[in-house]
């Protein structure tokens, strides 16, 4: 069993030194200068270097909204009082067993690392969602960007013709949009709620394509005349939003799975989650850096086992198909697939045969880009109540994700005079599951 609990994690904190340094910097530069987005810069490393390193990297986040049970997925406890009715099955990686509810994934672990040691402590939906989608505990007064926005900024191209953050969430339960926070509206998600096609991405029939294009050119010409006398970053930002419109419209076909061969569509299957995973594959193939596909609603306070029988079947099928498809196309090497929710579920089974919220010892997976496949990190006790090896925080998970993508996890955004590290203070990547 490839367990690497003792591999240099976590490392000694250097935050005190860093903070005293910032105090000096703060007083030298005049505390509280404008937090201008155009001045948000990374300390230490040039953005260009990062871009070269991280270029071409993509992420698909399979968001298991409501909190999937680790015992019915990646960390089964068969035969224990907490184990529930399902058996553990052997995977094709020697020494790794997962729940029998995930039979297809049991033959697809060669590119996947399972993390069994998340201890994120927060177990109410709203706060835990914020924690897992920003990688840090919410702080009054600072609007932290969500993972998708950070990665859109780090992996995307500012002039990109395709969207750089697409979020699909069609279930009404637990719907949360995700926000770019202090990174600004440029990195907000293109959010799909009701339909498979984003809003306002297609031209209306009442205007011809020529008119639509020429009208945009006219707008552009007038804006340039205005800019000759009044140049300002705010105006440029406005023009760049309009500059992206035609490109985004031209990418509408990416959302149209009818364009896929019947055989591929059949592989992904008829469920909405499957279809959205196919859209996600089409998007990353076209260069979209971050796609989130949410599957709801795992919050099984009652009837946990029936719920997981149904939802795991969908997850198992779609995730394995997605990994296969990405691999066949040579995309998996540069695409990180994450399966994650806001927390896991209690090992103890309640009176309604349900499992409740649980954030002390739960699991997630990372596959593909930068990941040492066929590995397991961390360990819980025999009943799954506590982490006994390799405890990992939300910040550590974020560090690991950034490191897998070639992004320096110690990088900081400057919000005025305040440094905000992209992964939370004192977090460390789990190097043992990275290639």
């Amino acid at each position: 069993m490839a367990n690497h609990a003792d591999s240099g994690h976590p490392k000694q904190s250097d935050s005190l030194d860093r903070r005293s340094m910032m105090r000096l910097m703060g007083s030298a530069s005049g505390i509280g200068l404008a937090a201008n987005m155009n001045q948000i810069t990374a300390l230490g490393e040039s953005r260009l270097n990062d871009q070269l390193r991280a270029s071409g990297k993509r992420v698909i986040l399979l968001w298991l909204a409501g909190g999937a049970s680790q015992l019915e997925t990646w960390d089964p406890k068969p035969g224990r009082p907490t184990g529930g009715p399902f058996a553990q099955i052997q995977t094709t990686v020697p020494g790794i067993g997962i729940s029998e509810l995930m039979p297809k994934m049991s033959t697809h672990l060669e590119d996947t690392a399972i993390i069994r040691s998340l201890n994120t402590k927060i177990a109410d939906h709203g706060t835990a969602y914020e924690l897992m989608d920003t990688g840090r505990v919410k702080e009054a007064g600072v609007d932290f960007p969500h993972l998708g926005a950070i990665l859109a900024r780090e992996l995307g191209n500012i002039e990109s013709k395709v969207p750089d953050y697409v979020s699909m969430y069609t279930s009404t339960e637990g719907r949360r949009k995700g926000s770019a926070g202090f990174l600004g509206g440029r990195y907000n998600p293109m959010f799909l709620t009701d339909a498979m096609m984003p809003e306002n991405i297609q031209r209306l029939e009442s205007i011809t394509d020529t008119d639509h294009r020429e009208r945009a050119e006219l707008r552009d010409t007038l804006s340039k005349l205005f800019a000759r006398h009044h140049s300002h970053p705010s105006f440029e930002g406005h023009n760049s939003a309009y500059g992206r419109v035609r490109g985004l419209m031209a990418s509408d076909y990416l959302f149209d799975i009818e364009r896929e061969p019947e055989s591929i569509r059949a592989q992904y299957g008829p469920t909405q989650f499957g279809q959205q995973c196919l859209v996600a594959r089409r998007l990353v193939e076209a260069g979209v850096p971050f796609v989130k596909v949410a599957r709801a609603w795992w919050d099984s306070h009652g009837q946990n086992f029936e719920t997981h029988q149904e939802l795991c079947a969908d997850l198992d099928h779609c995730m394995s198909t997605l990994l296969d498809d990405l691999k066949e196309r040579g995309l998996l090497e540069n695409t990180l697939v994450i399966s994650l929710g806001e927390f896991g579920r209690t090992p103890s089974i309640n009176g309604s045969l349900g499992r409740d919220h649980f954030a002390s010892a739960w699991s997630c997976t990372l596959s593909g880009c930068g990941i040492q496949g066929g590995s397991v990190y961390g360990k819980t006790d025999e009943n799954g109540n506590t982490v006994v090896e390799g405890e990992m925080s939300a910040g550590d998970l974020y560090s690991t994700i950034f490191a897998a993508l070639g992004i320096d996890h110690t990088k900081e955004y400057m919000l005025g005079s305040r440094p905000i590290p992209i992964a939370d203070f004192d977090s460390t990547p789990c190097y043992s599951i990275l290639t």
Partner: protein
Amino acid sequence: MPSAHPDHRYRSPSLAASVIIIAVINLLSAGAAWCDSDAARQIIQLAERIDQEIESQNADRLPRQTLSDAGYLRRVTLDLAGRIPTIAEIKQYEDLDLPDKRLQVTTSLIQSPDFAYHQRNELDTFLLRPLNHDREWRSYLLEATKENRPWDSIFREIMTPEETRPEDLRPTAFLKHRLGDLDKLANDSSVIWFGVNIGCAKCHDHPLVDDWKQEHYYGISSFFKRTYRSKKGLIGERFDGKVKFDTTSGESKDADFMFLTGTKVTEPELSLDAEVLKQYQEQIKKAEQDDAAETPPQPLFRPRQQLVDLALSDQQQRFFAKNIVNRTWARFFGRGIVHPLDQIHSGNPASHPTLLAILTDDFINSGYNVQRLIHAITLSVAYAQALPMTESDSPSHGENKLENQSDRGVRYFQHAEPRPLSPHQLSLSLLIATGNPEKTAEQISNPDWEQDRGKLEERSEGLAQKLEIPGENFQVPVSEALWFSNSSEMQNQYLGGGKDHLVGYLNEIEDPSAIISQAMFATLGREATSEEQVVLSKYFEQRNEQRVDTIKNIVWALVCSPEFRFNH
């Protein structure tokens, strides 16, 4: 083309404009009598003090340029009425030959129904909108802004609704939407009312600001700890409850009731016996869960009320007053005298300390009169400065130049900074710009304008809710550009070709150059430059066959321009 448009349907644009001018004369003269009053003289003096202070800090003698009449009117109408001016208002203002015409127009705007609505929208965005759209709360705010309720009264009503308006649930929304999260309630209250972001001092003393210690963070939290809301929606305070915290050295402490200035409130010994206390506690618990439950008694010592009393006491009120003066200033200049707005502390001095002191004193002495402060600001010469001019025609060259000079120019208020329109400003302005300008002008000069403005407000709500509220680092999101480019609302409603719309109105005019001129005035509030005339005329000529669509596309290009999107 002419065959489709019989001659008698055309109207000369100049005639159309003169009809409108007559209609708005009343609006501009509305404030004439007031302009001779003592109050007006005091406001003029205050505006002059502002300019003396701004000038005294301009040691570099940075070049300045004052706005044209049309430019000033657009800015001040957006700022005071929350919408762009109509063609008629611009012509009227340009033709007005009076030395004090700015006084006239600001007075008219402040006395118009538009002002109360706009002020309401601004307050809502500041106090609650990012969390919740609450109609009842908005009606409360409108009532307050219509009567120019003093800022300290609004503060009392919102923060202690149970004391000040026991029968009125509307002002409870501020507390209600934050009660689930003590940290948010405490920090938001501190940021909003006092301009102090204490968030950084939660886990340790503030690493960059010597003023803010952990004790301040938990001190402010303490004032809110006991607040609860009953199932009926009433706000109350418990009899007990203390905030505990761990210091960085690991010591566990009970927080004091401590204000940001370090002043503490001592809690008197609770003189209830244990049985009675328990009974009250249960009563409160019941009231939180059951809307039929009796309203529990209020304790004698109520920390939240103590905070409000303390903040408004003679010794402490400058903190409270300075914050709103600074925020109001920032609303009109795009930057605070102390900036960022939530960093009022000794390590972040004001750019113009005397100015801030003068305005704060005047604000307190005038009985927390927000309207007076706004009036003085908009009358100042500093407010009427233009954007910095780009000297070179090369955009990249211009940008570099701007960055060097801009920081200082903006910091010292020597020139204007473009400010993104708020969702309401943009949505209302789009309705005004794309409406039939004659009809709109007529409506605005009508005695029923107050009602009509209310209706316009309702119509603007749908789009306003879709748009992002601009924060400090606002960038126009691509979703907005997509909405303007491809939504059926934009194409079919705002750009509709009927008589109620600008497109339909322009289509009645024969001469393309008159169409262009009117389209420019209706949307951007100014005459087309010769270059723009050339570009737009050429566009018109190329598309001779598609007249209505051509007009539509021109109007679209104008309302989607950065010039329309920002107040500048």
